[in-house]
């Protein structure tokens, strides 16, 4: 089991830990519910140093990235970020990642912790010597600062004018005197930032941000609240909603599949599926009867078992029990009834639209 360089800080802050993707990570410091609300209303600081980072550089970097991903990285300018699946030839999702364009011939791929090893192997295989690859995962720490007050917190620590940075944009700058890569990205639906830092500077950066954070009534936040925050936004989590047997079209990620690209891995199968139509689609629901739906609980329409819950939890912001499941496409209209088997009893739920909770990210209103 791996742990991040901040393990002792987390322990000193009273964190409880959980295993996630081969890592021991804080699941909560004070209370999942309190941490959740703190991110929605103020600001929360996350240690995400378990995530993987792979640099792709050189004259053929773009060509390699374009082959790897379903979305279109040729649309990116320097300082822009893209969310995309990485698919297998089958169309199944190997991982979902962020692509940072740092320069014309310099890209950074940010991958899920549990997938870092298999992604690295896959990327090397696809690359076959064309671009210069570097697995920077072990050398890179990652903090996320999320919530409506996160820009106020960060502004105290950086000379960079944060008003210039919009959602899914990045810049190399200083925070607390440390040179970092800063992006206006996150997994909570709130305004916020992710900060990539060399591991040897991670503790210094954490302490500097933490100090300003607590003065602004912010809190450190664990993976427990990270999960309820992302679930309220309907964001897919690899291993729950996404896997090698699910395609982006099924997962509601058709917007990330750039069929106009001449080719990418999975293109053919995904095109076939797009033409034939998908059978199932990721769908949100909320419980009508008492009970909390959890991952893997069976889902029924009438007497027919149609699938299982991918993620489910009580929603602190909505004060309802919500979840997601793959349902037949014909059955996705909001208001449709379904049942979830919870503790050996079927309980009524109803289809609702995703996101469950509105997003508050800071989008650039028009292209520049």
């Amino acid at each position, binding site marked *: 089991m791996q742990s991040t360089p901040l393990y002792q800080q987390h322990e000193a802050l009273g964190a409880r830990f959980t295993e996630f993707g081969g890592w021991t990570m804080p699941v909560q410091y004070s209370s*999942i519910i309190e941490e959740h609300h703190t991110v929605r209303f103020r600001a929360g600081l996350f240690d995400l140093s378990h995530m993987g980072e792979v640099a792709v550089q050189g004259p053929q970097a773009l060509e390699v990235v374009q082959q790897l991903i379903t979305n279109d990285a040729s649309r990116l300018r320097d300082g822009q970020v893209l969310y995309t699946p990485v698919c297998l030839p089958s169309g199944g999702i190997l991982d979902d990642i962020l692509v940072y364009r740092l320069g014309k011939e310099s890209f950074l791929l940010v991958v899920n912790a549990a997938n870092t090893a298999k992604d690295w192997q896959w990327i090397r295989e696809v690359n076959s010597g064309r671009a210069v690859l570097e697995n920077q995962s072990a050398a890179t720490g990652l903090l996320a600062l999320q919530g409506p007050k996160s820009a106020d917190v960060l502004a105290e620590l950086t000379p960079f004018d944060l008003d210039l940075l919009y959602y899914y944009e990045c810049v190399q700058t200083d925070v607390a005197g440390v040179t970092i890569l800063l992006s206006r990205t996150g997994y909570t639906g709130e305004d916020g930032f992710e900060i990539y830092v060399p591991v040897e500077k991670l503790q210094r950066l954490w302490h500097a941000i933490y100090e300003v954070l607590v003065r602004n009534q912010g809190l450190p936040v664990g993976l427990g609240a990270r999960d309820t925050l992302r679930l309220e936004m309907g964001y897919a989590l690899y291993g729950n909603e996404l896997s090698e047997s699910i395609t982006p079209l099924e997962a509601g990620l058709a917007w990330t599949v750039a069929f106009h690209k001449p080719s990418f891995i999975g293109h053919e199968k995904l095109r076939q599926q797009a033409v034939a139509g998908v059978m199932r689609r990721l769908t949100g629901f909320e419980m009508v009867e008492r009970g909390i739906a959890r991952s893997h609980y069976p889902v029924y329409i009438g007497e027919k078992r149609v699938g299982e819950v991918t993620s489910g939890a*009580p929603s602190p912001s909505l004060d309802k029990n919500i979840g997601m499941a793959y349902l037949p496409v014909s059955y996705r209209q909001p208001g449709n009834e379904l049942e979830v088997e919870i503790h050996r009893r079927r309980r009524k739920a109803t289809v609702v639209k995703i996101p469950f909770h509105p997003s508050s990210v800071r989008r650039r209103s028009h292209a520049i």
Partner: protein
Amino acid sequence: MYPEELRYAKSHEWTRVDGNVATIGITFHAQDEIQEVVYVELPEVGSIFTKGEEFGVIESVKAAFDLYAPISGEVVAINEGLEEHPEWINESPYEDGWMLQIQMSDPVELEDLMDAEAYRQMLDSGESL
């Protein structure tokens, strides 16, 4: 944290005996492991359980935990306040957070439960949920 007058099950339920009726809840240790309780599901009055049988579920934001009857008998009362106030289990595990009252069918089973000292020892030896 572990009142002397209670009896304790390995599965972390406590039992308070009054005549032939046993009041049941979960221990300080159990609620602390579970953390914030957001949901409790209890059986109906009149349900009959044998010792060791699952009688309900308690849930935090993250996970569900089964509850097991420490003693056999018929449920004669449930704590209805917990539906609205599951947090009572965290705030007051031995008083406001009680869950069931069972009319015992075989009080001899009480001998299988631990006293506070034995339960503390079990926790110290590293047994968790």
